[in-house]
């Protein structure tokens, strides 16, 4: 109950702080919308054609969702940690009962709500603008939740090891952009050099993309050679969530421990 009270107090303060930064709120929702409009409505996919966007529109749903599930926690947590450090807020919090894990949990909860709302907007836009046929399932919610936990942990690590807000945002972009395009989101594994495949497997976003695709895209090709489901035979929606969950646990713990409590 005590822990709950602390997390609630922190999350409430975080929520108010975020919603009162109007530009941050606007661009959190506007950024994925831009991408959907550009790639989904203007460029359009060309199923069966060559090059990029040669899959049906529903194939790219994990990519659009990844824009917010990946980038929002990376940039928000990165800059939030830097802001807290610059304002000596961690020094203050270190002398209160709030632990670093609770602080990160509070931030994660706020991000989950923001990203869940943004995710709904994205799904609606993808369907409306691209005509994608997607299946809604509770797996999507689970993937968003676990993905946010994972990337909030990564964001906390970035914020803890960069020396300023600017540095945190730059590092977030430098890490996020390659991950976004090279994790079976917008670019299929077949379009990448063979030697690159092991690197794709190291990205937690890959398991997010595969799992969301398995859960939302009825025509998704599963059991591709080398993937988890092809080796273990488990339901890809479940199996990929397990792997993503393991990444989330590791990054959350490292992220929480990275947050500065002492000089």
């Amino acid at each position, binding site marked *: 109950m*005590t822990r709950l*009270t*602390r997390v*609630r*107090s*922190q999350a*409430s*303060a975080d929520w*108010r*702080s975020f919603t*009162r*930064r109007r530009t941050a709120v606007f661009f959190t929702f506007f950024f994925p919308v831009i991408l959907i409009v550009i790639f989904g409505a203007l460029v359009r996919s060309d199923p069966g054609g060559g090059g990029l966007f040669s899959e049906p529109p529903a194939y790219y749903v994990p990519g659009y969702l990844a824009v917010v599930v990946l980038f929002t926690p990376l940039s928000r947590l990165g800059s939030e940690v830097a802001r807290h450090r*610059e*304002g*000596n*807020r961690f*020094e*203050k*919090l*270190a*002398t*209160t*009962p*709030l632990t670093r894990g609770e602080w990160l949990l509070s931030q994660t909860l706020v991000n989950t709500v923001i990203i869940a709302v943004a995710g709904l907007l994205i799904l609606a836009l993808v369907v409306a603008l691209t005509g994608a046929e997607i299946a809604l399932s509770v797996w999507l919610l689970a993937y968003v939740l676990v993905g946010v936990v994972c990337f909030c942990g990564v964001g906390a690590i970035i914020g803890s090891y960069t020396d300023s807000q600017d540095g945190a945002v730059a590092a977030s972009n430098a890490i996020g952009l390659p991950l976004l395009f090279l994790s079976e989101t917008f670019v299929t594994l077949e379009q990448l050099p063979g030697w690159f495949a092991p690197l794709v497997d190291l990205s937690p976003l890959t398991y997010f993309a595969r799992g969301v695709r398995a859960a939302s895209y009825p025509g998704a090709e599963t059991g591709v050679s080398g993937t988890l489901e092809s080796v273990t035979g488990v339901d890809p929606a479940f199996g990929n969530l397990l792997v993503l969950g393991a990444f989330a646990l590791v990054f959350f713990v490292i992220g929480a421990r990275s947050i500065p*409590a*002492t*000089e």
Partner: protein
Amino acid sequence: MDAAVDATNLTKSYGDTVALSGVSLTVERGEVFALIGPNGAGKTTLVRTLTGTAVPDEGAVRVLERAPTDLERARIGVLPQAFSPQPRLSARELLAYYAGLYDEARDPETVLADVGLTGAGDTRYENLSGGQQRRVCVGAALVNDPEVLVLDEPTTGIDPAGRRTVWRLLEGLADAGTTVLLTTHDMAEAARLGDRVGLLADGDLVALGTPEALIDAHAGPSSLTVSLATDETLEPIRADLESALEFAVEVDARESDLLVRDVSPADIARVVDALAERGLEYTSLEWAEPDLEDVYLALAGETEALATRAAGTADPTGPAERSSDETGDGGEER
């Protein structure tokens, strides 16, 4: 009486810079301890070490008989230096937020009133004046009703009226038994609030004692400043007056005034008579008792002067490594 804070031989360096060089300090329960010293003297490092947010290279700290990192957080309240909370929360929301981090806390409305901000409770932190912001931060430090309150420059940027509000608040807390350790550059604040004052210079606690003891030991005598209405060289006048008055008379640093030392208020008439007998006109007479600022200038000013000289001669054994013994007797020195 049990010690609320007990630090022994604290040493802390950042690269080649010695921030603390063997500081030992005890603050009794219910005591108000004021830490003064120049910028860069090590005050904030000492505060961080005492609150567990910095780890000393050597030495030990006990706060309420426990290591700072093992202490129940509800028993201590801390205001870090240059602390800046979430700017888009109102003063009321910020105090409620920090209160929400504790099992038991003071009513945020009461704290808001205590720091004199009831009327500005709904104003966002970013829109408060600098002094109001600092008062919110002071409120956030005491919202958990701590047994030990550590405040790093609590009144920086606060106007005189607001400063007195904070002083009265801290005096009330001290009267109720709260141990207060504060750092300040305001000597009047240290003298008014501090049961004892410690002067930190170059990582050394160079003097420690009650304000009165420190003043008696280090501040020198009272002085009467005489601004003469003359263009003559002051040295012959000084020598003449000194022999006539039996007081030490000096020409001040700007060579514009005479300083008559160790004059009681009752002796001022004698000085006035001596001036009249010599036909010396004056534009003002100003008598001053020694205070904590004189102690600061006598001890920290000496350290700064040594530092300047050391920097000028590139002396590798500069004042950072200087022993407190060099500062002479007085107060309760280490």
